[in-house]
């Protein structure tokens, strides 16, 4: 508690201009940055997987399962940053028990469950069912039982049942695409519908969140594919990389155009909040928005990926550039979330001044907590890749 007061005391000395006295405390910290980031990775990875399946993009086959498992790993932890930032985490279940139907946030629990239970888990299960049955026969010891449990008692491998698995899997994918759109478009709506905050309030917010989600998800799957290939010491299929990069390029263009449109619209309309927002962008957000999100996270990747559409240097060079681009994009999108969540709280709703944000290391809103919720899904992903290795699937 004393710590908290000391922190607020320091924040009080950092106020610029006038803010409402209750605004000293910044309410949504880094965990609320992590939350849309992680959800975005889920939606993006899933959409990439669906592209392969629904549009039958054969080259992307090696990334299909990686993408699905990545989506699952991040989805499993997606709610945890949110729950751990509550002042009353023990009451979190109330959102499911007595939701307020008018609240955008209340719907989260349902969208989440729908997506986790109905879409992702089912899709993965139908997709792996045949292998799980075979593995449950071949493996020994504990692992055998793990697979046995995962079959939930269905061992039927007749050609007809396999045919059905495929059909149902396809159907779930088709349902899954709008669900992924819903999952993340909805996260954008949580911010976009706050009319009190001109930096958030925008109809474009859900769409921007969606496309930036796709950008980050695709970049992540690209990186995971490269890293997994490296660890397994198999050759990276350059056709796969080039195709993913091409998608990344196109979606990044759309994402960039949408964000540019949003900003141009603000600048041209120049409403009451215009002055404070331009001060925000040119001042407190100049590094995270101008340098990291725009320059490093968008323009450089756009330039590199665009260049490769016209001219393809040697594989080795492309590989490295893709790796760096993927990394930059992931950082860029993280800071996009940062600029929305933190940026939107840096100026006073009186439009007469600024507070600041100082990242704390420990505590439920601290950096370590945020890192924890970023590392755990990576570990889960490693586990899932070990349990359900896409490369060890039994050929039909």
């Amino acid at each position, binding site marked *: *508690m004393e710590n*908290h*007061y000391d922190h*607020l005391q320091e924040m*009080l000395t950092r106020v610029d*201009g*006038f*803010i*409402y*006295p*209750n*605004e*000293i*405390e910044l*309410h*949504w910290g880094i965990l609320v940055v992590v939350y849309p980031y992680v959800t975005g990775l889920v939606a993006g990875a899933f959409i990439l997987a669906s592209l392969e399946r629904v549009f039958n993009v054969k080259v992307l086959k090696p990334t299909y399962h990686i993408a699905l498992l990545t989506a699952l790993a991040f989805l499993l932890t997606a709610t945890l940053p*949110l729950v751990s*930032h*509550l*002042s*009353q*985490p023990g*009451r*979190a279940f*109330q*959102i499911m028990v*007595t*939701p*307020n*139907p*008018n*609240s*955008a*946030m*209340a719907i*989260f629990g349902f969208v989440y469950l729908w997506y986790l239970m109905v879409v992702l888990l089912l899709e993965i299960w139908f997709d792996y069912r045949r292998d799980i049955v075979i593995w449950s026969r071949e493996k020994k010891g504990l692992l055998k039982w793990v697979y046995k449990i995962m079959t939930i008692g269905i061992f039927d491998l007749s050609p007809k049942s396999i045919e059905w698995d495929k059909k149902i899997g396809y159907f779930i994918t088709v349902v899954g695409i709008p669900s992924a759109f819903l999952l993340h478009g909805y996260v954008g709506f*949580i911010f976009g*519908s*706050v*009319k*009190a*905050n001109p930096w958030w309030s925008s109809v474009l917010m859900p769409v921007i969140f969606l496309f930036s989600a796709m950008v980050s998800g695709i970049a992540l799957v690209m990186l995971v594919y490269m890293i997994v290939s490296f660890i397994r010491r198999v050759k990276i299929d350059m056709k796969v990389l080039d195709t993913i990069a091409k998608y990344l390029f196109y979606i990044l263009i759309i994402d960039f155009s949408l964000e540019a449109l949003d900003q141009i619209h603000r600048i041209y309309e120049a409403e009451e909040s215009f002055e404070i927002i331009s001060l925000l962008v040119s001042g407190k957000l100049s590094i995270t928005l101008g340098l990291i999100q725009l320059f490093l996270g968008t323009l450089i990747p756009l330039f590199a990926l665009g260049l490769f559409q016209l001219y393809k240097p040697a594989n080795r060079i492309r590989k490295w550039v893709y790796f760096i681009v993927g990394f930059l994009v992931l950082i860029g999108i993280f800071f996009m979330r940062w600029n929305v969540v933190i940026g939107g*709280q840096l100026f*006073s*709703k*009186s*439009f*007469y001044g600024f507070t600041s944000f100082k990242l704390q290391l420990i505590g439920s809103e601290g950096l370590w907590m945020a890192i924890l919720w970023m590392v755990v899904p990576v570990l889960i992903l490693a586990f899932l890749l070990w349990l359900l290795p896409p490369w060890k699937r039994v050929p039909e």
Partner: protein
Amino acid sequence: MGIKKSRPSRREFLKSASALTGVAVATFIGAPFNGVVIASEPAGAKGPWYGYGIDIEKCIGCGRCANACKNENNVPQKPYYFRTWIEQYTIKNDGSIHIESPNGGVDGFEQKIPEEEIFKSFFVPKMCNHCHKSPCVQVCPVGATYDSPEGVVLIDDSYCIGCRYCVQACPYGCRYIHPEKKVVDKCSLCYHRIKKGMNPACVEVCPTNARIFGDLRDKEGPLVEFLRTHTCQVLKPHLNTGSKLYYNALSAEVR
């Protein structure tokens, strides 16, 4: 608190949703149009419908209201938490605007700008607007923030999960997280007092009667009288929050 929530239950919600079109048309034709100043009330309701008035011309910035509120309502004494506070606006001759609210005005104010540079100066007390269409009630995921039947926006301490969405949604900066209770807190219009027929603590202590509490349905009452005899405006009317906190002599600089 055991207060009846006027938020409809799920069932009523569905019922009303299905009848929505009809109702919308009916209200359009049937009900007289309600202006911005007098917030629309729920149709057919009885009993008091509370609002609040502040006369900026009368406020001397003594800070007694903010002080009384802290004592009455167990608001932490630290200078980061306020149910009500006072802002000092000073417009200089060169047109620049200076606003201050040191410790929310609890300790009063001193004018730091030399007299001859001042074009005009005034105090604006702020508090929850008890919005009839309040964004905070709209966004609360669990319904812990709700409207009482008398038009008071209240918080159920035992229910709030501390997600702070309402803090983000309130355009007026009225909410804070109570550091001991670990739930959100804000002006309750001194519900515990007004239910007993008393005035809110801040109204009680104001030496100049700059604060007026009353029932908007009581056409002979002090608040309606105040609205009739003064030119009143609410804060940020363009946000359509249905604010029931009416200011006399509200200057355009105030946000």
